[in-house]
């Protein structure tokens, strides 16, 4: 009988502990980091982003002149940046390293050099 009660107590404790862990996880959910990026022929400003692994990022992209693209192939994150609109790109940096992002909408002589880097740190 005593053994049964102990087992029950342990199980209940485990449930409570589990619930507590879930609660803690919810509370520790990292907030999205918002970064504004301005594109203009043939640069991004800023063009070097440092992100923390696991912290979700929202990129708010605008263009100062023509239709542009933003593409970070390593994170499968891309958007057209239409003049007069804010393009939103969400990504979760899930790996450490330095990765390229680039304009993938041909915008003229200099298009080939329109790129930047995303550095993800642990």
């Amino acid at each position, binding site marked *: 009988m005593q053994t049964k009660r102990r087992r029950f107590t342990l199980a209940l404790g485990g449930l409570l502990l589990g619930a507590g862990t879930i609660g803690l996880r919810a509370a520790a959910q990292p907030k999205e980091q918002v970064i504004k990026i301005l594109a203009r022929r043939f640069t991004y400003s800023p063009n070097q982003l440092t992100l923390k692994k696991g912290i979700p990022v929202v990129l708010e992209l605008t263009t100062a002149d023509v239709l542009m693209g933003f593409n970070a*192939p390593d994170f499968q994150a891309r958007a*057209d940046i239409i003049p007069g609109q804010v393009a939103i790109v969400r990504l979760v940096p899930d790996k450490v390293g330095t990765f*390229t992002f680039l304009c993938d*909408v*041909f915008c003229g002589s200099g298009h*080939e050099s329109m790129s930047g880097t995303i550095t993800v740190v642990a």
Partner: protein
Amino acid sequence: MRHPIDRREFLRLAGLGGVVFASSLGTAGCAGTMSTAKDGGYDDFYFVQLSDSHWGFEGPPNPDAKGTLKKAVAAVNSLSEPPDFIVFTGDLTHTTDDPKVRRQRLAQFKEIVGELKVKDVRFMPGENDASLDRGEAYQEFFGKTYYTFDHKGVHFIAVDNVSDPRALIGDEQLQWLAADLKQQPQDANIVVLTHRPLFDLYPQWDWATRDGAKAIDLLMPHSNVTVFYGHIHQEHHKMTGHIAHHAAKGLMFPLPVAGSQPQRTPLPWDPAQPYRGLGFRDIEAEAKKAEFKLTELPVQKA
């Protein structure tokens, strides 16, 4: 019937020969689809691919920017045996914001290649020609940006993946492609000519076509498909399933191997080896074997 081995031997002896790359088109059974039997055999032929002449470019990567295309035209004209036809797979001219200059460059390019002895020349645009005005100026000089033609049993399809600056073929053209392919037997000999790679060669350098996978999906049911393209200014060979993709060298400046340096800047001109990395290729369609043999040729004799 021609004897391509003999011709290649001649090129080698003449100091013009380059690497020969055989691109198998699949099963020997497809030879049965060829409709050009001659003297009890099949009629082989060859064509020449030139690409990325970037007429109008100026800069240290090519001190002979105004002479290289002309030298390539002379080199093609001096081939021992004239090709059946010639294709230019895009970036005929270097981009400019000025519509007037764009047209001047297209006109000058057209005049220069008008010196080619072979008059059957097929063009297609690159992003430098067409992306800033959705192909408007290009079409004034060279007509449609996507089309088909047939030659000695091979069905050629020119695909435009540049007039939309987002590197999209687009739904309308994909529907056109699907309708065209539907008319082809499953084992038809199909050659796709385009500018950008249809597969994701290196998207980090924009070496891709955003909806290229849709085109490949349409081509996949056909057993004998080969793609020739430009854009990356270097020789490159890749298989996606049974489909072979061959990138050609350019005629203005070579580009580095994908990912080999931080930026896709042109490789520097080497005065000790002028025109290194530039060139064109001849492509021998050996109908009987259902394969293509590629020979890379320099702009100038060594």
